[in-house]
């Protein structure tokens, strides 16, 4: 059963240089207790997609489409209704904990804020709950850490605080934006293990460019390129048999798989190529790819791919 349904979502930013089409016609469903990985490279629009689910994008943006969460379209809710969902039923783990935590407020208070707001606990009860939360995310000595300031914690610990903060209101859906970015290999491994554990009974949209991390934690994967989705499949099938040439190229660029690069560079979101957006970099490009924009094709085994090779 679907918890979140995104239909034909478009998010455009008007700028001096032209309109940035950060998200350009995305359809995506997240099922209950599903962990969906959203994979893409810098500037493909994946962060904007995550932010627009939470409606955290500035007011100058042009947004179109539907984001249906439990039969309610988030885009048509009033600001007050949205605020109740934000941080309550849907929580977010933002990238870069160093700057995402307020440097002059104790971490305990930053978590307690959410608890008081969404669960209506008083100060004392909230503090008790915060200490439990910190213990859950395995921060050593929670009674003491609750009163630390962010700069007194290491990067890994800050990331745990971010996770505790997202879990504080017991959300049904977590949107995690690059939670493993900038972490050391060993720390990253622990954070992934922790995230897997705490999302056991929840849904999560896991936004990342780190294919390894996605492979470890996700059930399904959606691949994003130049503002649109190119492929959507289960984690096993996409890693063993990627269908879209871009997915294939991305996997082959990994050092483990021989560092075979994709030629060229990602297009700017202001003027994307005609036809298939990937065709200038594609080894299998055909005449039709230059002329027509491919639609998402649903295959028999439940996979979907946007490529004329499978049309």
């Amino acid at each position, binding site marked *: 059963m679907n918890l979140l349904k995104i239909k034909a979502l478009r998010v455009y*930013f008007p*700028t001096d240089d032209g309109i*940035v089409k*950060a998200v350009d016609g995305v359809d995506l469903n997240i099922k209950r207790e599903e962990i969906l990985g959203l994979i893409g490279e810098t*500037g493909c629009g994946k962060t*904007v997609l995550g932010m627009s689910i939470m409606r955290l994008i*500035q007011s100058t943006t042009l947004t179109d489409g539907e984001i249906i969460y439990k039969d309610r379209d988030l885009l048509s809710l009033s600001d007050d209704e949205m605020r109740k969902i934000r941080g309550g039923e849907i929580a977010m783990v933002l990238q870069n904990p160093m700057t995402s935590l307020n440097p002059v407020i104790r971490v305990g208070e930053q978590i307690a804020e959410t608890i008081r707001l969404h669960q209506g606990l008083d100060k004392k009860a909230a503090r008790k709950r915060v200490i439990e939360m910190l213990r859950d995310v395995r921060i050593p000595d929670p009674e003491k850490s609750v009163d630390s300031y962010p700069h007194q914690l290491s990067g890994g610990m800050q990331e745990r605080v971010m996770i505790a903060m997202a879990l504080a209101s017991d959300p049904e859906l977590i949107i995690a934006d690059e939670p493993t970015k900038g972490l050391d290999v060993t720390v990253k491994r622990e954070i992934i293990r922790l995230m897997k554990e705490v999302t056991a009974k929840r849904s999560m949209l896991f936004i990342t460019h780190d294919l390894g991390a996605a492979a470890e934690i996700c059930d399904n994967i959606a691949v994003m390129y130049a503002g649109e989705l190119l492929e959507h499949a289960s984690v096993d099938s996409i890693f063993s048999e990627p269908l879209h040439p871009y997915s294939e190229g991305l996997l082959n660029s990994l050092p483990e798989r021989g560092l075979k690069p994709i030629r060229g560079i990602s297009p700017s*979101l202001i003027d994307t190529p005609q036809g298939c957006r990937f065709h200038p970099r594609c080894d299998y490009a055909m005449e039709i790819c230059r002329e027509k924009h491919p639609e998402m094709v649903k295959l028999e085994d439940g996979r979907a791919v946007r490529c004329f090779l499978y049309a």
Partner: protein
Amino acid sequence: MRGALKSGNVFCKNRIGVTGLGILSVFILTAIFAPFLAPYDPCEMFEPMAPPDSQHVLGTNDIGQDIWSELIYASRISLFIAFTTSIIATFIGTLSGLFSGYYERFGFFVMRVVDLFLALPRLPLIIILAVFMPTSIWNLIIIFVLFGWPITTRIIRSEVLTLRTRPYIDSERMMGAGDLYILGRHILPNIFPLVVVQFVMEARHVILAEAGLSFLGLGDPTSKSWGMMLHYAFEYPTIFISEVWKWWMLPPGLCIVVVILALVFVGFALEEILNPRLRREIV
């Protein structure tokens, strides 16, 4: 950096900045062409305390000088002091900022001097110096420069300190480039926008300080600035209760206000363009 490159273009779109620049140019042109614009020699004396009429647009002052001509010539003095001071102070500040940011040990000593200057109260010190020094335009300029360079040094230095750690500076060093080459070719062009902002801010400060000093009677009486005119107007016994303030006090005061405002507008616009924090790019 991206912003800095586009800055010229963006500045034109900034209405506040263009307004300021426009006003400023009018004043500068007035100052340059004062002898052609002023109907009389400012020292020529007529009947004192005459109200405005067709001969004297703004009347005459207590010793019979034409106020309109006085006002036009005063713009020369005020702007000359302001711009000369800013040019010298910004120049010294930029050079010392560059070197003290690049050479740590030299910078340490310069910064202690700067700290001291900035900790001492500027205006009282300027007043007491002006009292003890013989009054002349050049002495005023020396005093203002003395207290003007340290702030520029500090600002430029902190910018150089961040620039110096950029990898491209390291890569220049690896290529065998000398210190002076790096400073001149790679660091100076990147701090230049900041230097311009500092220049504008300093000019604004000097206009205000010079007006204040002259108002207190510490200016050069042989070359009257707007502040000096206000000083004599203020000293006139019935300035507040008769109508003379309208043509004697108001015009020089408003000139000061408008020039400062123009400088503030230009500085503000420049800062807004150059401060990356204020113009964050989306996505």
